[in-house]
């Protein structure tokens, strides 16, 4: 936590001098259309009002790969393996060039999706689970993972009232059926099952995303406040234990 080396999920980044990271990495996970970005926008505004420096990062937003991923989706048939590697490259680029520098500078980094999204999607697509996990061995373990948990009965109307069902989020690339609605239901059911499994395995903090938007926001803030209080206490404790700076060398 505070001022200490954060742990990595696997082998980490041996080529990079990571050093102490004073900031906090908070991840918002949840399936497509659950309302992550709406919640994140509000969280950022709220945290900034309290005086925290905040930055955010999101899946497929890296400078290096965003364009390539879009091109690939537009006109290039990719296998699960190739897709996973593209996502991992996007992830690593953002991790090394955005997330870690921001954490070093003491920012709160809010990540819209994290490696768990790749774990869930790949499992839903039938890829080798262990391989996907090894791939993300370079990832930092987040300080807090907030999981927006929803079920199909609530997800379907939310997506239809929002931007509608899109090709990828409906799993049409998996050829689960020619009907987008049916395909969406099948694919998202699988995905949600995977997310729920991951939530147990990685101890996500689960937030009931079937509730109205403002209630979800209130729950997220409560969990983040509790986390920030805990990390302040831990920081104070470690400062008290540490010898004065002059003696530390």
């Amino acid at each position, binding site marked *: 936590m505070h001022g200490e080396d954060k742990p990595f999920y696997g082998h980490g980044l041996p080529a990079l001098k990571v050093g102490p990271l004073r900031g906090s990495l908070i991840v918002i996970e949840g399936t497509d259309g659950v309302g992550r970005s709406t919640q994140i926008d509000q969280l950022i505004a709220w945290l900034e009002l309290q005086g925290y420096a905040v930055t955010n990062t999101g899946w497929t937003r890296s400078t290096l790969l965003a364009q390539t991923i879009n091109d690939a989706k537009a006109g290039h048939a990719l296998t699960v*393996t190739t897709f996973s*590697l593209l996502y991992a490259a996007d992830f690593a680029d953002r991790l*090394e060039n955005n997330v870690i520098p921001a954490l070093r500078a003491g920012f709160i980094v809010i990540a819209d999706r994290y490696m768990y999204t790749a774990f869930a999607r790949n499992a839903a697509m039938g890829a*080798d689970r262990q391989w996907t996990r090894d791939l993300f*061995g*370079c990832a930092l373990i987040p300080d807090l993972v907030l999981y927006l948990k929803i079920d199909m009965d609530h997800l379907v109307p939310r997506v239809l009232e929002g931007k509608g069902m899109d090709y990828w989020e409906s799993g049409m690339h998996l050829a689960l059926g020619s009907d987008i609605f049916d395909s969406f239901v099948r694919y998202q059911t699988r995905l949600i099952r995977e997310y729920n499994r991951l939530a147990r395995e990685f101890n996500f903090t689960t937030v009931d995303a079937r509730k109205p938007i403002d209630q979800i926001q209130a729950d997220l803030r409560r969990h983040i406040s509790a986390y920030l209080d805990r990390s302040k206490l831990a920081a104070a404790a470690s400062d008290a234990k540490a010898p004065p700076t002059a003696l530390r060398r």
Partner: protein
Amino acid sequence: MLSEPHPYPGKLIVVEGIDGSGKSTQLSLLYRWLLSRGYKAFFTEWNSSILVRRSMRRGKRKDLLTPTTFSLLHAVDFADRLTYKIIPPLKAGMVVLADRYVYTAFARDVARGVHPDWVRAVYRFAPRPDLALYFRVPIEVSLDRLLTGRAKLKYHEAGMDLGLSRDPTESFRLFQSRVLDEYDRLVGECSLRVVDAIGDIHTQQLLVRRMARQVLRDYHGTVADLAAVGSDVV
């Protein structure tokens, strides 16, 4: 999977070695020989898919690449070529010749500082070659060949991204020595067949052909059971 022999009727022959080792010359001579002998051969090259070309160029130009993303972009390229250029010809019973294979990543990316176990895990999905030739050459010989051929060393080939030295030639020496060390480690681990690449081209090629002939001894060039594949679809 890299850990076991591939199930395809075709044969996969790959060449490895540092830049200037002469591996590409040897592979193209082998390719022509195979064609002349009536084999159906297919050639593919490291880092050549159009999929990541833009990212690679952008990353190199703006110096955005880290050892991790450098490694992953090459893995994307490899996975894409595997899908389109390596597996289909292998299934069709062709002889696939690859100029550089996963061992390039194992040597080069590790020399750049990525974790050896991680990069091996990343490439776990790669089929194991039937023959992997490693053209071993001392740094000075490869430097000599490169500098007479094209006057200037490439930025990443010289490992300039690592900041080992500001002089490209010196940086090349330092970086490629690390790569050589990694290759030497791989010889035993991955059963690479070493070719002494200092000698003359013709002698090397005769050796390469002899080794290729051994691999092709039990090879009949049969196409995968297409009838079975067809019935699978229906």
